[in-house]
C-alpha cells in the first residue's frame, strides 16, 4: 500500500488541483481499495484497479463541484531563483491550470498518460472506454493545452 499512496495522491492532485481535495480523494480511494481487497480478484493489475478507484472519485468530485480553482503548489526547485527558473515556474503553474480547464474525460486520459505513464490499454481499463476513445481524448486534450498555452504568452 505504501508505494501506491504517492501515485494515488498525485493523480488526485493533477485531477483536482487542490492539495486538500486531493488528500481527501486519495484517502477515500485508499480506504475503498483496502476494504475491497478481499473481493479483488486480480482480473487487472492492482495498480490499474486502484487508479480506477481514485479516477472515478475525482470525476465524481468534479461533477459535484463544477470548475476548479487550483491552490498554489510549489513548482520551482528550492534555491533556484534565476529568471529562467521563475519563468519556468510560471509556465508550469499555467500548465496546471490548463490541465484543470480540460473537460473531465480528457483530463483523466491526459493525466494518466502524461503524468502516470500508463499505456493506452491500461487507461482504457481504468476509464472503462475503448482504446480508440482514449487516443481521441488524449489527442484533443493535447490540442486544447496547446491552444491554451498560446493564450498565456
Amino acid at each position, binding site marked *: 500500500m505504501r508505494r501506491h499512496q504517492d501515485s494515488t*495522491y498525485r493523480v488526485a492532485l493533477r485531477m483536482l488541483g487542490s492539495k486538500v481535495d486531493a*488528500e481527501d480523494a486519495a484517502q477515500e480511494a*485508499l480506504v475503498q481499495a*483496502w*476494504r475491497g*481487497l*478481499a473481493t479483488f480478484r486480480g482480473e487487472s493489475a492492482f495498480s490499474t484497479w486502484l487508479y480506477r478507484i481514485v479516477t472515478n472519485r475525482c470525476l465524481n468530485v468534479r461533477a459535484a463541484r463544477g470548475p476548479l480553482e487550483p491552490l498554489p503548489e510549489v513548482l520551482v526547485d528550492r534555491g533556484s531563483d534565476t529568471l529562467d527558473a521563475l519563468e519556468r515556474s510560471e509556465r508550469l503553474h499555467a500548465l496546471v491550470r490548463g490541465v484543470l480547464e480540460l473537460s473531465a474525460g480528457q483530463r483523466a486520459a491526459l493525466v494518466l498518460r502524461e503524468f502516470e505513464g500508463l499505456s493506452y490499454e491500461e487507461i482504457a481499463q481504468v476509464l472503462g472506454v475503448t482504446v480508440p476513445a482514449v487516443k481521441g481524448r488524449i489527442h484533443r486534450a493535447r490540442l486544447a*493545452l496547446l491552444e491554451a498555452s498560446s493564450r498565456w504568452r
Partner: protein
Amino acid sequence: MELAALVAQVAEGAPADPAHQGECPYCQAALGRIRELWSDVRALATFPVRAPRGLLDEVRARVSGPAGAVTLPDVTRGNTQVSEGVLAGVAREAAQAVPGVAFASVLAHAAGPGSVVLRVRLVTAYGPSLPVLAAAVRERIVTHVRRITGVRVTEVDVSVDDLATPAA
C-alpha cells in the same frame, strides 16, 4: 503540415517530415511552441509529488473495525472478531520463539476483512545476520498468526531496535 500531426510528432514520436519542416516557417514556429509545451509537460510529470505524511495512517485508522479488531469473513451464524491486541500477542510469541530474538514488541492494525498489518520491533542477539533473522521472524509470524487466529497478515514491518548484550 497539420497541427495535429505536429503534436503527435512531438508527444508520441510519430514520424516527421524533415524536408518539408526544414523549409516551412509555419511548421517551425508551431514545432517550437509544441516542444516548449512538451518540455513543460515533462517537467511537471517528473516533479516529485509525495503523499502527505499521515495519509496512510488515517486510512488505516478508518479501515480498522470497531474497537480495533479484525473481523473474520464469512460466518453463517454470527461474526468472529479478533482484537488487535490478541493479534499482536500471537505475533510477539511467534517472533520471540525465533532463535536470535531476545525480545519482540508488536503493534497490530486491522486492515480490512480477515487481514492485519503488523509493526514489529526486535531486540536481537549479536551475531546472526539481521536480514536473515528479520525474514525468519516475518515468515514465522505470518504462519502462526494464520494458524492460530485465521487472520491473514498482509504486511510485516520489522525493525531491529537494539542488540541484547550477553550477561557479564
